[in-house]
């Protein structure tokens, strides 16, 4: 119904093979060539709206999109992920390892923090040590890789030793919490990070009003050539998507990062507004607590998955802005995606499986749903109606987001989840599916699966690695620890005088330093 703007280009990873590709090359490859018809111009203010509130400015504690964006504006990391999910240089210009255990990262020379001090290997070591310290409670602790030891060799070389061969270390170090902070700030005034900025990023903090806005100004000492082009970036927090759309239409803001697909028809009518759409590996789920009745029975999980009409769910939840998924958390964007024949709605088999599992008609199951994003609620309604067709009575229980995080998330045994794409297959499995996963919400605890993941992450031969990861995906598909009905598309909307907007499917990089205004 709203398909009359160019389909996103699902171009893939073949762009950037070389590890030492400069970020200038990234910019050219990463955006439609049309945008680069003119030369980037210096100056201007970008007003960008985000829907979620920032709880802290401290990048080590960041958890949501608004915070990731602010972290990227004010700080630099070692490595970034390109839109093809390849690691590309940030402060580190070169990296490598002979055995995937002993890693060397070479830093850019002459990078300065905003207090004038030079960024050196000591700062990187201090930052990684701080993230790994359980007392910091950084979400990065389990996500930046199985790091055993980190040390500085001279001013510009960082050595990292992993617990076992781990070929995904560069991708893992692109985790958004991994932002380099001056060693003396970490040691002396760590608490001030929540409200102040000390990074070496493209912009400096000017003003932060919690719940309202963050204003940042150009960092003239930024290490990357002419960048950033903008004089000022205003991040405005607009939780109401209708208000956000209106603000874009009336020119009060320049860029809506996450455009609501229900309001695209209004945006399409305006010639001054551009829309970009990309496919991503972000998805909602229906999570089962695999350690408790009745979801400990794989037949019950499979039956519920089989009764879902995925096309209907996609249309009603996202107006078709997504792709049908196959209960596989790995989308085609990932390097080791494994195609499995699509699971389709099959009410007969579902009813038979439920009967075999001893589930009586009219069994009531409460399904918990957080209020935001609204897709969760819609998926709940569709699931409820689909399950009713095989005699399962799903009772929807809506809770507000903070109650959800407090009481339901990781605790309940039947709820709607929502996950970003991860940097690689390994990161996804270690976030959700292995017995020692950071969240392990489904409590699937499957030893065979754990063994496959461990084998895959240690394997250096890409062919064998692909086979191991394929086995992992097949197991998840067969055992259904959670239902994954579809992958979301990202739609971003901006005024036509904004150039160089690139949405990264990983949803943690925004590369605002490449943006310029006409």
């Amino acid at each position, binding site marked *: 119904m709203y398909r009359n703007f160019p389909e996103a280009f699902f171009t893939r990873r073949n762009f950037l093979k070389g590890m030492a590709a400069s970020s200038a090359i990234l910019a050219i490859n990463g955006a439609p060539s049309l945008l680069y018809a003119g030369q980037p111009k210096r100056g201007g203010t970008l007003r960008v709206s985000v829907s979620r509130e920032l709880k802290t400015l401290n990048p080590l504690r960041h958890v949501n999109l608004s915070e990731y964006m602010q972290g990227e504006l004010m700080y630099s990391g070692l490595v970034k992920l390109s839109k093809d999910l390849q690691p590309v240089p940030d402060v580190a210009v070169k990296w490598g390892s002979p055995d995937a255990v002993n890693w060397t990262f070479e830093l850019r020379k002459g990078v300065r923090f905003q207090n004038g001090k030079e960024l050196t290997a000591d700062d990187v070591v201090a930052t990684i040590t701080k993230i790994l310290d359980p007392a910091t409670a950084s979400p990065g602790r389990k996500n930046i890789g199985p790091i055993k030891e980190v040390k500085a060799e001279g001013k510009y070389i960082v050595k990292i030793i992993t617990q076992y061969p781990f070929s995904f270390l560069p991708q893992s170090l692109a985790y958004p919490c991994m932002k380099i902070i001056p060693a003396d700030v970490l040691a002396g005034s760590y608490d001030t990070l929540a409200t102040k900025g000390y990074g070496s990023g493209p912009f400096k903090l000017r003003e932060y009003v919690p719940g309202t806005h963050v204003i940042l100004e150009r960092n003239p000492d930024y290490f990357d050539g002419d960048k950033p082009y903008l004089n000022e970036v205003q991040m405005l927090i607009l939780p109401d*998507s*209708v208000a956000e*759309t209106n603000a874009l239409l009336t020119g009060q803001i320049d860029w809506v990062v996450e455009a*609501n697909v*229900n*309001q695209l*028809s*209004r945006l399409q009518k305006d010639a001054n507004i551009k829309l970009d759409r990309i496919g991503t590996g972000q998805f909602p789920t229906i999570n089962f607590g695999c350690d408790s009745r009745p979801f400990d029975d794989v037949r019950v999980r499979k039956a519920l998955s089989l009764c879902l*009409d995925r*096309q*209907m769910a996609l*249309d*009603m939840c996202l107006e078709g802005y997504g792709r049908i998924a196959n209960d596989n958390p790995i989308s085609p964007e990932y390097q080791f995606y494994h195609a499995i024949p699509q699971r389709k709605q099959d009410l007969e088999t579902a009813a038979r499986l439920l009967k075999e599992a001893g589930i009586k008609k009219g069994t009531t199951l409460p399904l918990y749903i957080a*209020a935001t994003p*609204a897709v969760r*609620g*819609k998926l*709940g*309604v*569709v699931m*409820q*109606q689909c399950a*009713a067709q095989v005699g399962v009575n799903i*009772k*929807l*229980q*809506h*809770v*507000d987001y903070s*109650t959800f995080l407090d009481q339901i998330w990781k605790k309940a045994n039947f709820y709607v989840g929502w996950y970003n794409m991860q940097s690689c297959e390994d990161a996804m499995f270690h976030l959700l599916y292995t017995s020692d996963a950071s969240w392990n919400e489904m409590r699937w605890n499957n030893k065979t699966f754990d063994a496959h993941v461990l084998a895959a992450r240690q394997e250096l031969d890409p062919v064998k690695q692909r086979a191991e990861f394929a086995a992992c995906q097949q197991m998840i598909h067969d055992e259904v620890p959670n239902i994954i009905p579809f992958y979301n598309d990202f739609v971003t909307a901006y005024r036509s005088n904004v150039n160089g907007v690139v949405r990264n499917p990983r949803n943690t990089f925004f590369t605002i330093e490449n943006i310029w205004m006409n």
Partner: protein
Amino acid sequence: MSRLFSIFSTLRRYPSAFVGSILVSCLLIVALLAPVLAPHDPLKLNPRERFAPPSIEHVMGTDEYGRDVFSRIIMGTQTSLGVGLSITVICAVVGGLIGLSSGYFGGRADELIMRIMDVLMAFPGILFALLILSMLGSSILNVILAISVTGIPKTARVARSACLNIRSEEFIEAARARGEKTWYILLMEILPNAVQPIIVEASIKVGFVILTASSLSFLGLGIQPPTPDWGLIVGDAREYIFEAPMLIVWPILAIAFTTISFNLLGDGLRDILDPKELGRV
């Protein structure tokens, strides 16, 4: 029959009561017959008919799930009236008893009860209800409980002041002198003479309560989807306000209509039950 006729002739002299009682009767009939009146299953998803405009098949069109809006509005009458009336009855009974006994006993007990009521009243009603709901979880029963708790203090105050007026009347003293039990004095002597303000307060409250319950559902903390509920329909339709503006208009009309109906009836009852007017009934 003659009694019905006398009620009717009384109502005719009070236009707001007359109109209000007719509208409320209509609502009650719709609520009772809702499953018969609704032309479609209000829960059935229909992917091929999403956002359909009004037609003979779908009088008010269909919503984002292709469900028939007219059927949902009709079924919503049950939820709204059910919640509204049960809360009002709870408030009138519990608040009435608290107020009457507080007024009758007087002294320290009165002080204690009324200060507790004052504390409860000091909270803004909807915030207090939100607090209770986020502690207990969202369900119809908890909505009823939450709004009742916020509504009881007002009824208690009304009942108490009515009780204070007649507490020292001679017939009460007579009853005491006869050695009647306290509950007998409260229920058989005081209540019949203090019931009018409680009834008026209750009838005005219904509209307000329905509005509060709808607000809670709108915020996602009241009735749970997919139950057809007007507040919930408004909340869901908000996202489509420019695509399908009528989706939000229908439930709002229903809420406004119901609130106005009950307020008219309440106003009318207040006039009719006014002691100065009572002689004429």
